């Protein structure tokens, strides 16, 4: 068999490294022919998703190369590249991918020999590591056939649409973006113009918040309709306008195909009691990945996870954590990437079954919904009880197993759509909050079934309208007189923090309310 020849993608800055590679040429410095250069104007132009997509597509190694600090043609682009690269390499390391596969290097114009040496070194290291296990990208998944339009209409009962427009009138997206209409999308599909929906970027604006379906007199499952349409769109190469450049989606896809053991529990210390023998499992979810990705917003996503463990431990439960748990697949499923979802669901189901778990507790409503409804719907039966941490805590409070100290604050509660409208869990979080002495729970004007969403879901189409929705929700929370907005979804937290970090607010009225996850608040109030 021929020797393995690694393939390296090098994103090279036009002003230095690209020129250094030219110098290597004019000096006839020989180096292995394993590198393919993609010219960029500045290393600061290289986005996290460029690196992850290169890996996804099968690059054995990725090199980002730019000017030495202080020499950037654009003053400081290289420093920004460095910051981004550090984030990416943290994520890559949590995925378990060898750190040698992604590299950042400063190579100046005159450093032709350095360029050649860098490639030699990378090739040697990669030969030792062997080929990257990632070979198929999202285009491979796109090749699989989608549900036919007719079947989809049957499945979602879209045929029964009465054209009453209740969906559009209740749709929060439509309220902010008048050009978006669930009814029009249904009508298009029923009239056989499904392909128009597929190529409409607004297809990805739907939050799947279920506000419409709860009101539909004909019981049309609009979110399911939209999800199925996105499946078709995905196969036509439409991804909407993914937030954060689609980096999170790309990481999920890498994870779904990854044979590596993740390093997702690096944060776990002896402070928390966990047990491999326990029949209760805690589903950690995405928070280890959110940590580096959203750190710049000041959100410490793992706090939510740690708080949940504290609640479990205080109730005498030492849960099992899966060292190689993968993304639940929620975002993949809701962006039409069903193949990725199925790979993830298959992996998680196998691990959960092998562990002999009787109960799984979640701090994330998305994971909860996905495992509870979408896994069985796709043939992944878990055969165990599932609970959100708020339901778990409410149960323990009722039994008198959780005790709280005084916490004199006025709080209001944000019903996350996955927990509320999707699963009907409205009472448990409220019961938990009310059990804390001194705490005063104030409802916002729109609550429970009528709650307003945090503005985006599955990390797609997070634009101006999402932001406005978020700001309005925060204003509503502030107007309620509460000091703290409690949510029970890590993503709500990220999105609200993002809105409050928004610099445009500096130039207008600002919002002053603390956003705290339910688990954090409860853990902090434990006696």
């Amino acid at each position, binding site marked *: 068999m021929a020797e393995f020849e690694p*393939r390296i*993608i090098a994103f090279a800055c*036009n002003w230095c490294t*690209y020129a250094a590679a*030219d110098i*290597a*040429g*004019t000096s*006839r*410095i*020989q*180096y*292995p*022919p394993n590198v*393919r*250069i*993609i010219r*960029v*104007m*500045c290393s*600061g*132009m*290289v*986005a996290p*998703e*460029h690196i992850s*997509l*290169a890996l996804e*597509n*099968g*690059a054995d190694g990725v090199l980002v190369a730019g000017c030495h600090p202080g020499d*950037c*043609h*654009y*003053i*400081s*682009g290289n420093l*920004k*590249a460095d910051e981004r690269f550090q984030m990416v390499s943290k994520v890559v390391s949590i995925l378990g991918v060898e750190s040698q596969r992604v590299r950042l290097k400063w190579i100046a114009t005159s450093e032709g020999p350095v360029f050649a040496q860098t490639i030699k070194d990378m090739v040697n290291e990669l030969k030792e590591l062997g080929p990257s296990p990632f*070979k198929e*990208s999202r285009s491979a998944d796109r090749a699989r056939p989608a549900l036919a339009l007719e079947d989809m209409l049957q499945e979602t009962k879209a045929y029964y649409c009465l054209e009453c427009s209740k969906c559009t009138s209740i749709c929060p997206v439509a309220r902010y*973006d008048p050009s978006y209409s669930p009814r029009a999308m249904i009508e298009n599909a029923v009239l056989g113009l499904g392909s128009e929906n597929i190529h409409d970027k607004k297809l990805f604006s739907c939050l799947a918040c279920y506000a419409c379906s709860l009101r539909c007199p004909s019981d049309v499952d609009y979110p399911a309709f939209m999800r199925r349409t996105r499946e078709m769109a995905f196969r036509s190469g439409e991804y909407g*306008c*993914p*937030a*954060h*450049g*689609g980096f999170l989606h790309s990481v999920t896809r890498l994870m779904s195909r990854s044979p590596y053991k993740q390093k997702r529990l690096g944060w776990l210390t002896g402070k928390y009691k966990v047990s491999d023998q326990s029949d209760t499992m805690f589903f950690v979810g995405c928070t280890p990945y959110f940590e580096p990705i959203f750190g710049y917003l000041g959100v410490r996503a793992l706090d939510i996870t740690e708080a949940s463990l504290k609640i479990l431990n205080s109730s005498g439960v030492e849960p099992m954590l899966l060292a190689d748990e993968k993304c639940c697949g929620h975002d993949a499923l809701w962006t039409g990437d069903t193949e990725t979802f199925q790979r993830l669901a298959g992996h998680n189901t196998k691990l959960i079954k092998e562990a002999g778990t009787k109960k799984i507790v979640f701090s994330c409503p998305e994971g909860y919904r996905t495992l509870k409804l979408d896994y069985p719907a796709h043939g992944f039966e878990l055969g165990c009880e599932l609970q959100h941490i708020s339901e778990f805590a409410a149960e323990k409070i009722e039994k008198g197993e959780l005790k709280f100290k005084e916490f004199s604050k006025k709080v209001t509660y944000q019903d996350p759509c996955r927990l509320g409208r999707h699963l009907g869990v409205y009472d448990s979080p409220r019961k938990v909050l009310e059990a804390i002495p001194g705490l005063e729970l104030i409802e916002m004007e729109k609550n429970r079934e009528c709650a307003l969403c945090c503005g985006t879901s599955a990390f797609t*189409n*997070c*634009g*101006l*309208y*999402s*932001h406005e929705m978020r700001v309005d929700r925060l204003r509503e929370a502030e107007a309620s007189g509460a000091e703290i907005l409690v949510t029970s979804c890590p993503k709500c937290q990220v999105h609200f923090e993002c809105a409050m*970090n*928004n*610099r*445009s607010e500096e*130039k207008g009225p600002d919002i002053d309310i603390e956003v705290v996850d339910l688990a954090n608040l409860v853990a902090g109030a434990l006696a």
Partner: protein
Amino acid sequence: MEEPRVGVFVCHCGINIGAYVKVPDLVEYAKKLPNVVHAERNLFTCSEEGISAIKKAIKEHNLNRVVVASCTPRTHEQLFRAACEEAGLNKYLFEFVNIRDQCSWVHMREPEKATEKAGDLIRMGIAKARLLEPLQEIEIKVTPAALVIGGGVVGMEAALNLARQDFDVHLVEKESELGGTLRSINKLFQTSEEAEKLIKTLVEQVKSHPKIYTHLSSKAKEVTGFIGNFDVNVDEKGEECKFNVGTIIVAIGAESLRPTGQYGYGKMTNVLTQLELEDHMKRGEPVGENIVMVNCVGARVPERTYCGRICCMTAIKNASLIKESNPKAKVWILHRDLMTYGVDFERYYRKAMELGVRFIRYSLERPPEVIGEGKVERIRVYHELWRREIELPCDMLVLTTPLIPAEDSQNISKMLKVSLDEFGFFLEAHLKLRPVEFAMDGVYVCGSARWPTDVTEGVSQAYAAAAKAAGPLRMGYVKAEAINASVNEVECTGCGLCELLCPFQAIELQLKRDRMVSHVNEAVCKGCGTCCAACRSGAITMHHFTDEQILAQVEALFG
């Protein structure tokens, strides 16, 4: 977008490519790739025949994308782009593939693999080319006028230089008179010319020049716009004065540090700074028989680590002048190191020694001490060579302090969106390559606003800045980079991350239809793409290097 029709031209570059890479195979390979309607090989694509082959093929095959696989865009992109343009194709529909510098020349011993790599690179180039879009370089009209901030000798020289090139110049000075720091200076080294005389000549020339509009007791209050079109709002003696200029020169100079609390300064009656001594001498007031000068007061200390650069020469000049007018006077200069760097400066230093000025070195660890009540009587200094303390009689103690950034620096830096260095002086775009220019196009710096300079250096810089500032004014227009970023205002959440990141302040949040959204000023954007890489909502497109184009290259390699 119309269906891409790609033409591929593979260059032999004589033997440079052809001897190591199988060019005919590459041509056959390229022909099979999607959207390729024509592929050929040339002995030298950059030769006249090669260029005419490109032009001919564009017409014959109705090509709307051109890919040349040859050497490096760094030397030949302009040429091939021009060929496309001459054949009526937008030059941004051209894509370069480097199969010489980064392939045949570096894999000479592996022709098979070099050919395979060249094939990959061509496939990637075509994948990008298919997605290329035509771009236009916008031309921005330039107002043929300049603003010079600061009416010192450097500002006046810059203004005169521009005015003599027939441009209108607005000269803004915060004081009620022109002349700046030089107004307090006695005589200039090395010529001993009276500073007043020099200023007088300059002021007369400035005032009598019909192209210079002098604004005294004035401050630039607001500057908006970009190269070619800066709207300037000046507060002139309480009244608003508005005008438009094409370029701006910052010549606000610097200030002398007042070392309050050190060596009895501010408490004892006979302690002065060098600048105060100048004034003293100009008025012809007696300085006494024993004069001690201490250098590096407030400079090269932990809180201000830089060397004041011109202060050694100031001390030597004033010491020499005292000795020349009263040879019996005793003058000591206590210093830490002497900086006599310029043309003839060393000779000037030696002359001071000949005149009888005495130099004693002290160290930061053992600075000189002041002895006296209410008035300095003696100075005690540790002589490093003798290794003992000596005492010097002192009628006047002169402290040599460094120049520090002018008070207005911060404001002007914010107003013009130009950077300051760690000490608060203005920072040029590149020390060596762009010494009097700011990163912000159309704004220039000269004199002590950048770093302490003497008159000679300041005037040279004034000429340099004026020459740079005159360039766009003379052209009448500037071309903005076509490879730039643009914002989709519906997808933008107005988070402002891009505004924070942009190294050129080309991005600003603006209120549009009641919403704050990001706006890229195409005239200022340089196309580095850092905004696009950071955008959370995917609202920014980096033209010519779009996500789709980059991804197409990646997918083409592995797909």
